[in-house]
């Protein structure tokens, strides 16, 4: 376990040094969040009663989404891993007495945490200073906050498990770009990145909520904003856990088989 912790630490430290990227990302996210809220405000002022979420809940959803973007943004791939699988350099990882899949997981989690750590605090601070209902509402019961934190952890695991699944598919494809573009689009639409899932038509929303993408940002953001009430939380978080297990095992098997093939074919 200690060696995977070290991989984690290493990736975290490497990620923490990109200050300029963090500054740029932070300002983008702040402007983006403000624009989104202005857009929804126009609709809300017209027909507040037809809004599927309260404006305050929606603002919290959007600000948290911007603060934690790096944690769940599907396009936040770990390029080193993709490259190493594509070029076959991954076989050189076999020179270490480690399990490659666990190492990938440690690195992916660290990569996302490092990026988020540098950006989230200013966005949370500034947005919580905005007047209601446009700001981030920090009033949340300790119980709800605990559930929110747990669903955040599950969310990061789902996102990383999904990324690893895509990396493992790369063993079988000449170029993984197609599946990556598709994943980003699917996560944007079905995961509540473009519009929160409550805004989608009923039937389509029910379908979207079952996909692994809805187990990503959709869950913690809606728990925090109060849109998913606490009694419903265990069911959605159970689904998160389900996807973690399914994606991790599928990716693990694909990688094991892919590596065996690489070992036989010659990296």
């Amino acid at each position: 376990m200690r060696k995977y912790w070290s991989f984690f630490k290493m990736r975290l430290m490497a990620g923490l040094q990109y200050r300029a990227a963090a500054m740029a990302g932070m300002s983008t996210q702040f402007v983006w969040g403000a624009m989104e809220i202005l857009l929804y405000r126009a609709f809300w002022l017209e027909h507040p009663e037809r809004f599927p979420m309260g404006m305050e809940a929606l603002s919290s959803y959007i600000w948290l989404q911007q603060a934690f973007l790096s944690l769940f943004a599907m396009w936040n791939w770990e390029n080193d891993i993709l490259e190493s699988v594509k070029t076959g350099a991954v076989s050189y990882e076999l020179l270490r007495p480690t399990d490659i899949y666990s190492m990938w997981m440690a690195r992916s989690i660290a990569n996302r945490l490092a990026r988020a750590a540098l950006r989230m605090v200013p966005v949370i601070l500034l947005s919580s200073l905005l007047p209601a209902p446009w700001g981030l509402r920090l009033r949340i019961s300790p119980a709800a906050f605990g559930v929110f934190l747990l669903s955040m952890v599950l969310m990061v695991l789902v996102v990383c498990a999904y990324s690893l699944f895509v990396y493992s598919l790369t063993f079988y494809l000449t170029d993984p770009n197609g599946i990556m573009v598709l994943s980003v689009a699917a996560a944007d639409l079905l995961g509540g990145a473009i519009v929160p899932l409550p805004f989608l038509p009923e039937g389509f929303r029910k379908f979207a909520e079952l996909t692994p993408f809805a187990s990503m940002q959709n869950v913690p953001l809606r728990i925090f904003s109060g849109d998913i009430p606490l009694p419903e939380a265990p069911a959605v978080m159970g689904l998160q856990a389900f996807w973690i297990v399914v994606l991790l095992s599928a990716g693990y098997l694909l990688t094991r088989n892919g590596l065996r093939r690489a070992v036989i074919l010659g990296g």
Partner: protein
Amino acid sequence: MIEMKGISKTYRVRRREAGLGNALKSLVSRDYTDIPALRDMSFTVPDGQILGYIGPNGAGKSTTIKILSGILRPDRGECTVDGLVPWEDRKRHVARLGVVFGQRSQLWWDVPVMESFDLLRDIYRVPAAEFRENLDRLTVLLDLGDLLKTPARMLSLGQRMRCEIAAALLHGPKVLFLDEPTIGLDAVSKLKVREFILEQNRLCGTTVLLTTHDMQDIDALCSRVLLIGKGQLLLDGDTARIRAMAGESLSTEEPVADLYRRFGI
């Protein structure tokens, strides 16, 4: 002790003629050609030997190294390194192995070298005291000093190679594979690296398998040389004998090229 007995390895390569028609055809049926990379390769390396492994590009040197490192499985034949079959007992095998590929880096690019070393310590589970001792020794012998605090990307090639070699030896491996370790180095760095390899071998009894195209590497380091071509072992003898067969020349590549010509490879 490294033992290889009757190892053969064939690669399957997809081939097609150029042109749109043939590209379309290959969508339906694909032609494969078998390329033998190693044919019935056998040799034994006793503990503590420095062995030069030479042959032209495509002769099968890398394939041999990959098989010995456990990242490639041969089609036929037996192989053990200190009693372990590399590709079957991979984790235990690589824990006792150090590898340096002259053309690849095992250091993390953006962080100081020492961070990579700490990571390697945890990966190989080197006890703190042993790690300290190895590191101190390597720091003195390879003149690492301030390099440890420098990010790998800021190092010159010679500095980086010294760090790479140190990285491969932190866990005190019994066997060291060096794949063209002096490639692209300047004269001073080459001498330093050679001097170190000899010292490491003398002090720790490390078995070294060295691939190179540089006759001076072989002269300076190896007591024995294997020459391979087209996947077969052509010559196995002590360095003096090989040296006598190769022409006299001041350049470093000429004598090796001479040998290749003589064997028609």
